[in-house]
């Protein structure tokens, strides 16, 4: 979904129906002539206006007010943002989110690339592997979170049973600052590693074999071919996966919410013991919908948006540059 592919799409749509041609080439185009096209795109833009554009403005307005949905609205000025800047819990949530996202995304995308390369190499069972790789991404995140909560349970979890069976000490997975993050990162890796591998596999299939033949003739080894040919040619797909993993990972909500519950944020253990699993969007949810603090919730939502946008841009730049 790079800008290049968008341009290509635009250029591709050069078809003009003969009936509309005179109007298109004439000095003035009468928009009314195109009423069927406007009618066709209008449902989306109507919904967009009501559920997209209006809420954006409303959220911005709310961020400068105090409202619990019942008592009268009061003007707050920059108070919500001032409070947010000093809010230690929000800062904790930001740090948690970034740590979990890095722990999940970086190893996952590397693994996905490896899996895709192997899928590209084998000749048999390709469809079977692809179906299995896809399966976790269509499975309900609530069910998966319940499953991970069960297997990493301190007493009855199979992970600890295996560890003690091997003579190793049991780990209190769902109690520690780092172990909670590891479990959440593993969950996200399990769910999305196959999906990303499929995307990379599709990209690998688009690379012409002649490129590899030429590299071989030039005496390039396996590692050199991978670094100098495969990765640069996969750049658009890598860019896409990095950006969607950033946007998705920084908005993690359901995983910690199902595992640790969504008690009001005054609870010191919301998001798990020590709030180690409290993510930005989980904190937003608690403030807005458990505490009915709509104004503060809107301020958090804008802060999350800013953080996600900054990281998506940084990643875009880094990935786009690394190919040179």
């Amino acid at each position: 979904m790079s800008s290049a592919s968008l341009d290509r799409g635009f250029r591709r749509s050069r078809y003009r129906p003969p009936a509309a041609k005179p109007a298109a080439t004439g000095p003035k185009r009468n928009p009314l002539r195109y009423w069927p096209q406007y009618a066709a795109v209008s449902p989306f833009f109507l919904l967009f206006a009501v559920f997209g554009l209006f809420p954006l403005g409303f959220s911005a307005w709310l961020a400068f007010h105090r409202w619990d949905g019942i008592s009268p609205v009061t003007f707050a000025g920059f108070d919500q943002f001032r409070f947010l800047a000093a809010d230690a819990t929000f800062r904790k949530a930001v740090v948690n989110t970034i740590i979990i996202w890095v722990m999940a995304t970086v190893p996952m995308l590397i693994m996905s690339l490896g899996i895709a390369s192997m899928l590209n190499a084998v000749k048999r069972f390709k469809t079977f592997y692809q179906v299995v790789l896809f399966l976790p991404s269509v499975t309900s995140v609530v069910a998966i979170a319940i499953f991970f909560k069960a297997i990493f349970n301190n007493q009855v979890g199979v992970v600890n049973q295996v560890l003690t069976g091997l003579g190793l000490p049991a780990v209190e997975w769902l109690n520690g600052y780092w172990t909670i993050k590891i479990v959440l990162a593993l969950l996200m890796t399990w769910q999305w590693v196959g999906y990303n591998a499929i995307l990379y596999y599709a990209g690998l299939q688009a690379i012409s074999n002649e490129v590899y033949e030429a590299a071989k003739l030039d005496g390039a080894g396996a590692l050199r071919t991978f670094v100098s040919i495969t990765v640069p040619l996969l750049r658009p797909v890598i860019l896409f996966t990095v950006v969607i993993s950033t946007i998705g990972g920084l908005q993690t909500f359901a995983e910690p919410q199902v595992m640790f519950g969504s008690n009001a944020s005054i609870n010191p253990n919301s998001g798990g013991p020590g709030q180690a699993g409290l993510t930005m969007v989980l904190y937003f949810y608690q403030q807005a919908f458990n505490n009915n603090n709509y104004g503060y919730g809107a301020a958090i939502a804008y802060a999350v948006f800013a953080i996600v946008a900054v990281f998506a841009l940084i990643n875009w730049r880094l990935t786009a540059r690394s190919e040179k």
Partner: protein
Amino acid sequence: MAAQKTIATPRGQTAGAPARKGKGVRNAARWAHLPLVLTTLLLLFPFYWTVVMATNTNSDFYLTPPKVVPGTHLLENVSSVLTSINFFGSMANTFIVAASVTALVLFLDSMAAFAFAKYDFPAKNFLFGLMLAFFMVPAQLSTVPQFITMIQIGWVGTLQALIVPAAANAFGIFWMRQYISTAVPDEILDAAVVDGCGFFRQYVLVVLPVIRPGLAFLGIYTFVAAWNDYVWPLIVLINPDMLTLQVALSQLNTTRGTDYAVVMAGALLAIIPLVVVFLVFSKQFVSDSVKGAVR
């Protein structure tokens, strides 16, 4: 190591020139199965273990060594699930929502995509850009105002609060526009215009029959997303008797949290319908998404 070997010998190269296929190449391709099988086992393990936990009793999990094969207590666990949450009611709600959203998205997105793909009209590029910009805006920015809107129009706790906002989406229009651009030849549209077809008759008579594979992909994608949607239903469905499956499952997890056999039986029941749907359509879905990704 295996990864590096296989990268040097991509599949097509050996397929295109079987005569030159060296011994090392063949071995590398075969060795690549080992990590793939390992990945397969890791990805399938949760499904197997969910079955194990859902078919045993809670006390079985405390045994050393633990039970690693399915037991015989599935029915009693399932009946505990059914007494704890309104399972079939939530499943019916989820089905109504997912089916309605899918039907609406397929119709509205493909029609809008047809206009964007094959027609030029004033402000088209502006509207398309606006749509893509909206695509980038994270959901939680609009969550609070949407909730307040739903309160104002009295839709809180109803299924239309889930269906109407999801009835058309930027992703579907974007994807479908790409699909229609390539899949629908301009010549047959020209022919339809010559035959006197207007925009909507072209859409029904020419475009819809041609884009059926694309609709199948977008349909499965939309259905799965709607079925698994969790955040918005959790917020807007405030009546505990009127939930979707994911919210009901989460409620089961909250109320029977330590009752692992029962909670896992609920998780099993909740994932079975979608896994079956996916497996039935999987071949088509997988090949379409591979094609869609390189587009």
